[in-house]
């Protein structure tokens, strides 16, 4: 029984961990943090005000063209 509960706890912890990880990843995508990270990786630059400005410039039109529903 004890082993069963222990296994259940581990399973639950793993599941919660995955859930939180996915949630955070989703938020990072929605909030464009992931897009910025990809931009840095693609251009092989470190995060800075200049890099962020370049990212926004590249990203600006795509972002502004994205419709938001009513």
């Amino acid at each position, binding site marked *: 029984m004890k082993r069963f509960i222990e296994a259940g706890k581990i399973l639950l912890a793993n599941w919660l961990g995955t859930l939180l990880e996915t949630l955070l990843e989703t938020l990072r995508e929605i*909030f464009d943090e992931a*897009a910025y990270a*990809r931009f840095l990786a693609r251009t092989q630059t470190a995060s800075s005000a200049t890099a962020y400005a370049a990212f926004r410039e590249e990203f600006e*039109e795509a972002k502004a063209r994205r419709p938001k529903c009513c």
Partner: protein
Amino acid sequence: MLGGRKLAGHEFAGQELARYSLSMNMKKTISVLTWGAVALLGAAAIGVVAVHRGEPINALWLVAAATCCYALGYRFYSRFIATKILVLDALRATPAERLENGRDFLVTNKWVVFGHHFAAIAGPGPLVGPVLAAQFGYLPGTLWILAGAIFAGCVQDFVILLFSVRRDGKSLTEMAKEEIGQVGGFVAYGAVIAILIILLGVCALIVVNALKDSPWGTFTIAMTIPIALLMGLYLRRIRPGKVLEVSFIGFVLVLLAIWGGQWTSETLAVAQIFTLRAPTLAIFIIIYGFAASAVPVWLLLAPRDYLSTFVKLGTIGMLGIGIVVLHPTLHMPALTRFVDGTGPVFAGKVFPFAFITIACGAISGFHALISSGTTPKLIARETQTRMVGYGAMMCESAVAIMAIIAACSLQPGVYFAINSPAGVVGQTATAATATISNWGFPVTAADMRTLSHAVGEQTLFNRTGGAPAFAVGMARIFSQSLGGERLMALWYHFAVMFEALFILTVLDAGTRVARFMIQDALGHIYKPLGRTSWYPSILATSALIVAAWGYFLWQGVKDPLGGINSLWPLFGIANQLLATVALCVATTIIIKMHRTRYAAVTLLPLIWLVAVTFAASWHKVLDPNPRVGFLAQARVLAAGPATPATARLIFNNRLDAAVTTILVLMVALVLIESVRQWMAVLSGKSESRVKESPFVMTRLAEERV
């Protein structure tokens, strides 16, 4: 010996097979029993919601009915569409994989795409529409939201997403042009522009109605502008790219602004500055819309978008939990006397107006733009389109159910006092309460005074538009679990801020999207006008778009019937028109895929939408009742005393009638073109070839998706 082992092996295999078969049978039995129980519970809940009369019912019945319907719809109907019609292929590489460029096209985790898609489709529509339609009672809205979403809205989002995925992420306009013809593409383009303009006018009007004569609300919303600018600068200069962090900071600052709003409303000198009449607020919002369209995205639009998404996702989650935990009683009857078309919130019978008023929670053409916009470029596997397309729309529909619950948990008298324009119920509190009580929904001026005081407002009468009624309902639900009556005012202003914030985000983003569309079109006439970075073009096209929706806003503000009466149905018609275009595209593709026997899946919602759109348009243009028909109202006004205001109202009514007629003609055009295509394909006169990208085998490993 060998023979004996062989025999033992056979016996073993036989036992394994028997065990496997038993386990499969057991699984099947459990599945049948579980889904049978869900169906029974759903049927019972729908039965209670539909049949119960007299005593108020608990909101949990609505929650149970909705949950069971969504579960059954997803498990069975969407699966049927996925396997029988669309034949989703997990081995076919999606554009996210084939065209991956790290920017637009990107293989993304399915839950991330789901969140992204939901955040884009969920706006103020599913909150406002159901609140307005609650004037018919909770039943028509609830049934339409459930049936509409499961059989129409979710289907539209799902099939359009999949068809776009199979066409390299093409937009609805491009697909309409390719599959239906030039007319389809042209109508889709016109419908998008029309929807955007009308939508922006209506959205701005909702904000004006929520903030007029409310120093607390106006202060809070005004503060979101410097907060957004601060966030923009923080992101650019102090902590580049830390969006979640700055959104959290922005959220804390907004909460401080709500708290500061209370001080503002209680300090006479400051309160006077922020107590604005509707026309003044309208002018400010028009100026704001122009500025938001013309200033760089990073400075205002992007941070406000982040802030509103942060607040939106959190608040919707909180409201869902609040409703389940507190399960309020629905005081509104299942059906009110206003199903006959005499409603004070907006005029018109339950058919077709309930189905025009509730668009986003049941079916929204606008979703087709998102399903054929960013989302198809992120999908890793075709099979995920079911969860993202069908599933996200189900969640949006659940938000609409929450809005119905929030509105119907108010006492009906209070609901009508908030949502009825002065032109219908009377100018004074005494007149309004007498009119509403005479309808059989008792309410007193003292009740309304107490409620206004509790939420920190001077008055709650004539707050048309749906947002204030939703805010009162939401504040009541929140205050019952957190802080009690003491915090009711804070919760009310939190709700107003929440709605106004993301309505203004729609305003910013919509104005800019429309500006780009106009610039793209004008670029064909004179090249520099198409350049999105050329300031003369930016200013001219921004002014054009803002003037267009600003006109509708001004018209709504000056309308003695509150504006929403005319403008919301217009928006509903425009939105359902776009859904009609999307369903025409979907049906055409299904027929071309040789799945004609299943075409009813999109054809029936299409027929329903055409019936609704045509009937609503006929009423709005030609109905002899001046509260419903634009032309009848113009005639009544023309017969009265001639004043400059009358002349303007007559012109506005005729303009609305003309806009509605143009929208209907557009529907008719695209329908005729589609039917011509179907006939040609079915009779063999036209080649039945879908314009899909060629099949390429996926190379993605399972763990990447």
